[in-house]
Structures are given as C-alpha cells and as structure tokens.
C-alpha cells in the first residue's frame, strides 16, 4: 500500500497547491499591493485610509447594516419557522415552501423586482399615488432603509430554514421530559428549546451577517449616496485609485473574519443532531380566531413575498414605453421574450451565463470530489489545510475576490504564477469557480463523511479496483450530495453579479450585467424578461437537483 500512499500524498499536495493558487494567493497579492506602490513599499494608502473619516464611516455603515440585517431577519424568520414547524393550519405545506423561495433567487433579480414594485415609479408607489391623487411619487426607495428592507426580504430565509431544521431535529421526548418535570411553556422555551436551537440560530446569524456584509446588489442599486464597503471598493477602483481599493478590500476582509470569529466562537459545541425518533407532533391551533389569524397571516406574508416577482413577470410582458402613468399596463406583448431569443446580441448574455456557470460548476465538482477522496477517504495529513482553503471564498466577500483576481491576473509573470487574463473570456468563469469551491466542496465532503467506509471495503474485497469502486459504488451513493452541490453552485454562477460587475468584458457579459444595462437604457420590459428567465432557470435547476429518490438502506 505504500506506493498508493505516496501517490495520494502527492495528489493532496498538488490539489492544495492548485486551490492555494486560486484562493489564497490572490488574497496575499491584495495584501501586499495595499502596502506597495510602483515606487516600492509604502504605508501611504493605509495612512490615507486611516486618516480619512469617510472611510471609517463607510466601514461602520457596512457593520451596522449587517448587524441590523441579522436582527431584522431573526425577527421575521424565527417566528415564521415556529409557525410552520409547530402548528397546522390550512395551506401550511404550500406556504411553507413558498416562504423559502428567496433562497433560490439570484440577489440581483430580487433587487430589481423590488425596485419595480416598491421603487419610486414602482407598482406600489403608483397605487398610492393614484389612490390619494398625489402629484409626485409618495416615497423614494433609497439609502440605508431601502438596503435594510431588501436584506430583510431576501435573507430572513436563512433564519427560517435553519430554525425549522433545528426544530425538526428536536427530540420530542426532551420536550415531554421537561413538561413532565413541571416546566411551563415559557420555561420550556427558555431552558430547553432555545438552548437546543442555539447552534441553528448562531449558524443562521453567521450566514446572514456574512451575506449582508458582502451584499453588493442592494447597496449598488438602492444605496444612492449611502455607501457600504463593497460598493465603495468598486467605485474607488473605477476612479483608478488601485492602492486605496486594496486597503479597503483588506479592511472588508478583516471585518468578515472578525464576524466569523465572533459568531463561531460563541457557537460552542452544543449539538441537537443525531436524535432518532419522530418529530414533535404539530399542534393544531385550537382557538378559531388565532387559527384564522395564522392562516391569513401566512397567506399575506407569502403574497407579499411573491409580489415583487409577480411584478417582474407582469413587466416582462409590457411593450417598451407604453406604461407611463396608468395603474395597470395598457398593453401586453411577448415581444420582449422573442427579442431575447431572436437578436443575437441579446441572446449572447444568456449563452455566456450558461456556459460560464456550467463550466465553473463542473470544475468545482471535480476539485471537490478529489478533495473528498483525499480528505475523507485517504485521511490525508494535508486534509485540514485543503478544507480550510476550499472554504475560504465563503468567508471573504465576493467583491474582495473579484478585486483580488483582477489584481492577480493583470500581470504577466508566469514564474510567480501570474498571467494576464483580464480582458479574456477566462477570468469570469475562473472567478465563478473560486466562488463555487466552498459551495460544492461543503456538500460533497459532507456526502463523503456520511458514506459507510465498509461499502468501499466491500467493493475492494469483491475484486473491484479503485476506479471501478469509485464509479460503481462511491459516485452513485454520492449522487444526492453531488446534485445538491452542483445545483447551488450552478445557480450562484448563473445569477452572479458581485464578481461579474468587476470582471466582465463585453464578450463575457453575463445575464445580471445585461439586466442592469437594459434597465439603464430604459428597456424595462427586456430587463424584466431577463429577470424572469433567470428566475425560471434557477427554479428549474433546483427542482431537477433536489428531486432525487432517497436511497434506502
């Protein structure tokens, strides 16, 4: 077995070098560039950042918006999870699924849909304007509050899903034990349910914080004069102040790492998982008034959630320039959609997004599978390092990676592992790949860990070589994990905006950028049609990816 051992050691080293080159190296370059000018090493950029009150202000904006987003999302998501997991009322199943919808939608689509519904010239504003006969739009959807609103709307789903999963795992016997020991409803909540849910809640808080901190679409479109770090970095770079952009990038990364450290540190090891038995029985709501309220509340919430996307759908059928002041569009057409598919220039972004998302997903899956074999199967000594490197792009905001990759691939120095890719078609798919690594590897490594190792041994004792055993036993059993990882990675790539806006070229412009440019040119119908297309594609991929018969046994 020693030759295969040294081969796997070599494989692990090779993979670690590859992932390190893709993930760690660009960040190191950003760090060095932030203290390096064409004239040599310098602390000038750092000093300028530190002495500029505006920079601190932007950084503070990023932090408080993220914290407020966590609070707001918890406020919406947790009660909703309890409602859907513990009580029964008419429509619970359908609504429960609808409420989880934002998780499959690309952030930019949500933001644009929000704009169409609640924006200054949006549907809701028009309605209020018409009802009260106002001269001007009743509000402007701009600034911090607009960003918070969008965050709450698109990120509460983390709290909702993780809390529900945590509740479903609660051992009902534990609740019964507490009740039989005389605990009343509040004591039960405070002493049993909440402590057991703590890991789920902290997990959701972490996920929300990191997503909010990295959020780019919402501040970019609704921010107006209100800047957060991700938008600030992009604007600084557009102004040609590269050194400053590097310092800002480093600052944002540090805040992200601090958030991770703080929330991970308090997460502890309290586990609620691994309990056998049935989920706690759902309580039927007894009081008719409360039941009606829960039902109505559930439905209203679901409709509120879906309204932006319905607006998007509606707008995608409106001919250019026909809907001006009326409450409802006066005319409908399918020409927006035919334009997407018949005009080569409009079809191009769709083709781009599809190939870049699928290509990056396939490579990410291959890397994740190799990592799974080396980390879990061969228990490589480099495993922890490899796993940490693969997870890094999740910790670091997308803007940071976009800037880092742009920096790394703007210089021709093959000996230093750098080539010029900026301006070529390869940079964007490479960025998608980096962003997809944590998504696919997390799912696939978990899949490997759940596999019974004796299945592999059984295959070996039945005479199967390594490849046959991989092909016939390991991969088929990993299918659900691969499907889950592939789905999430593909949908992330398909709807990506945050890295695309920094790295795209005219030839590689993806759907998200085209939505934005259509919007700027006033092609609202076209933008909406792109948005609907992106939504439908994401949803279809999700259904295909999750609809797997569970392997029994």
């Amino acid at each position, binding site marked *: 077995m020693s030759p295969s051992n040294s081969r796997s050691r070599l494989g692990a080293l090779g993979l670690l070098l590859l992932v390190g080159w893709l993930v760690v190296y660009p960040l190191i370059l950003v760090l060095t560039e932030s203290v390096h000018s064409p004239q040599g090493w310098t602390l000038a950029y750092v000093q300028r950042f530190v002495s500029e009150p505006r920079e601190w202000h932007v950084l503070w904006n990023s932090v408080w918006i993220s914290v407020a987003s966590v609070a707001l999302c918890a406020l919406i998501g947790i009660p909703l999870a309890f409602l859907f997991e513990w009580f029964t009322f008419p429509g619970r199943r359908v609504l429960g699924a609808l409420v989880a919808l934002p998780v499959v939608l690309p952030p930019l689509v949500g933001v644009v849909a929000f704009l169409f519904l609640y924006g200054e010239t949006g549907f809701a504003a028009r309605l209020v304007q018409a009802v009260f006969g106002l001269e001007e739009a009743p509000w402007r959807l701009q600034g911090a509050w607009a960003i918070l609103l969008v965050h709450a709307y698109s990120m509460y789903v983390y709290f909702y899903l993780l809390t529900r999963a945590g509740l479903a795992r609660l051992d009902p016997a534990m609740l019964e034990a507490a009740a039989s020991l005389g605990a009343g409803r509040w004591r039960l909540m405070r002493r049993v349910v909440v402590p057991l849910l703590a890991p789920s809640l902290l997990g959701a808080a972490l996920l929300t914080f990191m997503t909010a901190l990295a959020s780019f679409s919402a501040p970019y479109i609704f921010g107006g004069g209100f800047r957060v770090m991700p938008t600030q970095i992009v604007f600084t770079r557009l102004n040609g102040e590269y050194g400053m952009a590097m310092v800002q990038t480093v600052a944002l990364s540090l805040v992200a790492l601090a958030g991770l450290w703080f929330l991970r540190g308090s997460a502890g090891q309290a586990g609620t998982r691994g309990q056998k038995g049935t989920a706690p029985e759902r309580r039927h709501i007894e009081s008719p008034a409360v039941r009606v309220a829960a039902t109505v509340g559930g439905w209203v919430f679901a409709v509120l959630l879906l309204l932006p996307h319905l607006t998007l759908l509606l707008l995608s059928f409106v001919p250019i320039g026909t809907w001006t002041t009326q409450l409802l569009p006066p005319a409908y057409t399918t020409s927006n959609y035919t334009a997407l598919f018949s005009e080569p220039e409009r079809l191009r972004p769709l083709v781009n997004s599809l190939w870049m998302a699928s290509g990056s997903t396939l490579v990410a899956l291959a890397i994740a599978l190799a990592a799974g074999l080396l980390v879990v199967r061969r228990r490589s000594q480099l495993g922890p390092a490899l796993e940490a490197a693969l997870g890094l792009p999740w910790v670091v905001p997308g803007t940071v990676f976009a800037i880092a990759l742009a920096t790394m691939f703007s210089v021709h120095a093959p000996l230093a592992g750098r080539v010029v890719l900026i301006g070529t078609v390869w940079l964007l798919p490479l960025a998608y790949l980096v962003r997809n690594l944590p998504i696919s590897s997390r799912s696939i490594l978990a899949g490997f860990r759940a596999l019974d190792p*004796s299945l592999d041994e059984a295959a070996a*004792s*039945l005479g199967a070589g390594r490849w046959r055993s991989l092909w016939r036993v390991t991969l*088929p059993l990993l299918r659900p994990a691969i499907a889950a990882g592939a789905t999430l990675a593909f949908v992330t790539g398909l709807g990506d905006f945050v890295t695309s806006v920094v790295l795209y070229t005219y030839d590689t412009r993806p759907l998200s950028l085209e939505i934005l440019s259509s919007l700027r040119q006033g092609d609202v119908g076209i933008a909406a049609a792109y948005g609907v297309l992106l939504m439908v594609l994401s949803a279809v991929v999700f259904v295909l990816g999750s609809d797997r018969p569970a392997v*029994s*046994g």
Partner: protein
Amino acid sequence: MEAVSGKVNPPYLILDRVSKRFGETIAADGVSIELSRGQVLALLGPSGSGKTTTLRLLAGFETPDSGRIVVDGEDVTRFPPAARRFGMVFQHYALFPHLDVGENIAFGLESLGVKGEALRGRIAESLRQVELEGYERRRVGELSGGQQQRVALARAIAPEPRVLLLDEPLSNLDPTLRERTRREIRGVIERVGITTVIVTHEQDEAFDLGQIVAVLRAGRVEQVGSPDQLYSQPANPFVARFVGRSSALEVAVMEQGPTHTVIGVADGAWRLPFAASLPAGAKALLVARPEAMRLGVPGNGAVTGRVVERRFTGATAYYTVQLSDGRSIEVEGLPEAARPDTVVGVEPGERGLHLFPAG
C-alpha cells in the same frame, strides 16, 4: 503449491507472527495460526482483543507491520484487498444500497469477468445456496435483517473466494433469529466447503461454528484448539475463565502425589484426582466448572459453606455457595439438592478442575 510438505493436511492459510500497531496500542501481537483447506476458524475474544484487526489484516484492509499471510502457498501479505480473492461478510453487511440483490451479488463476479448467461446462472446459484431463490430484483432496503445477512453471505461466496471472512455475523440480529441464522451459515459453509474465518465475542457462536477456535487477548493468541480442547484443557486461567462457566479460587497446595494433589480450601481440604507440577506450599489458582463440583453433607472434615443463591434452569440448578472464608463457588446440582440459606458441604468431582500456578 508444490508438494513440499509431507504432511497429510498441508496448511492452506497461514498467519505467521503477524503484528499490527495503531499508535500506542498493539492490535495484533505476533499472531500465528494455521488452517487446513476447508477448515473453519473462529477468532474469539473480548472487545479490544484484536480479533477484528486480525480479520482486517486477512482481508487486506490493513497491512501488517511485520509477519506474513500466506494462502495456498502464495504470500499475500502486501496484496491489496481486490487482489486477494478473499470473500468478506461485514458486521453491518455493507450491501450496496443503490443496487438490487442481484446486482450486489453480480458485483464480485463482474470483477472476474463473468458475463451474460453465466453471470445470471451464478447469481441464481448463490441465492439458492442461501435459500433466497428469485430475490434477484429485490431492493436491499426491503429485506429483513436476516435476509440482508444471507445476501451478504451470497455476495461474498459467489466469486468462489479462497477464504471466507465473517465479522461478527450474528451481532446485528435479534436473539430469536440468531440461532436460526447461525445454523444457516454453518449449513452454507459446509455445503460450499470453504476455508472460513469468523470473528465473534460469543463463545456459543465460536464453538458452534468453529472447528478450530483461537482465543485472543490484547492482540495475542492465548490458545488455539478445538472447542473440546479449549474447554477441557485450557492453557491458562484466562482461557479457562473466558470459555465456559467457572469459579476461580486462590488455594494453597498442601500435598503433591503422583496421581493426586491436595489443596487447602477455606476450612478444609480437597483431594484433586490429578498431579499438578506444583510443590507443596505453593500458591495456586483453582478454576472449577460448576459441573465439576458436588454438594454434600457438612461436617466430617468437609469444606462447608452456605447456599446464598439458587438459579433453576430446568434439568439442573446452579448453587452459589459462600465458603467459610467469605469466597464463593458455583456448583451444579439436582434441582432439589439444597435450598438457599442452608449449610452444605462442597466437594470436587473427577473432571473440569484446573489448577494453575498463582500469579
């Protein structure tokens, strides 16, 4: 194999001073066992004794630090599992959940290049051997525990391996199924006539399935022999106590004769009907089977004690007798031989007594 050996039954499977260490712990410490073709070996020992490691070394999932494993004259010590042609039945069966019963059994046959009609025939034949004819298209998850066990057995024997390995084959079954499945396994092994190694921590299973039993402790082989030998001629106190019921008493040798030994026990003395190579005055450990002891009348120089417990099993009863020095011994007797709390005499019988040097 060339006819090197002049023996009638040349060893077919040889474990030659096989050792394996995991960090600080020695899981196998110079394990040496030989098996003739078609023999069935049971590896018996408490948990942590190294029996599963020994099986995994045989299967090739672990490589020994030193020593050799030879099968049919071929040194397979460094062979990967796939090249050994050993069949294995796993403790939790390890049936492939995404394949049906037929595909599971086909897996090992396909490794040998068996195809088409021949493949179907071999699958059907294997299923017939475990009495699951017609189960080819069943899903693994639909089967009961006992059926899964038999499919695992069929899958292991289908490629006609040189050696069959079974890891705690009955530990996952409920007690009512164990007896039946054990008989079935024995039947299949006998019909196929395959050289087999079974790991178990249950003495019943080891004695029932193994023609040869190796008792392991802390990675070492304590004794190898037939079940009868292990029971009637245990090599050391550990084997004597681990195999079968027994009581152990520390005693002093009082007299050593040519065909008898007298030992002092509590308030009296026993005359054992064999010579032990222990000098008078030496400390010794007496291991006595319950059936080796008899209840008698107290007094008259007999060792006396009080019955503290009586366990009735039907044909006989087991009496726990507390001797005058506070120690206890278990005695088998007729159901009506004594009642709890009565004073009885205890005396040794002819067989089932083992005297070891103390230490």
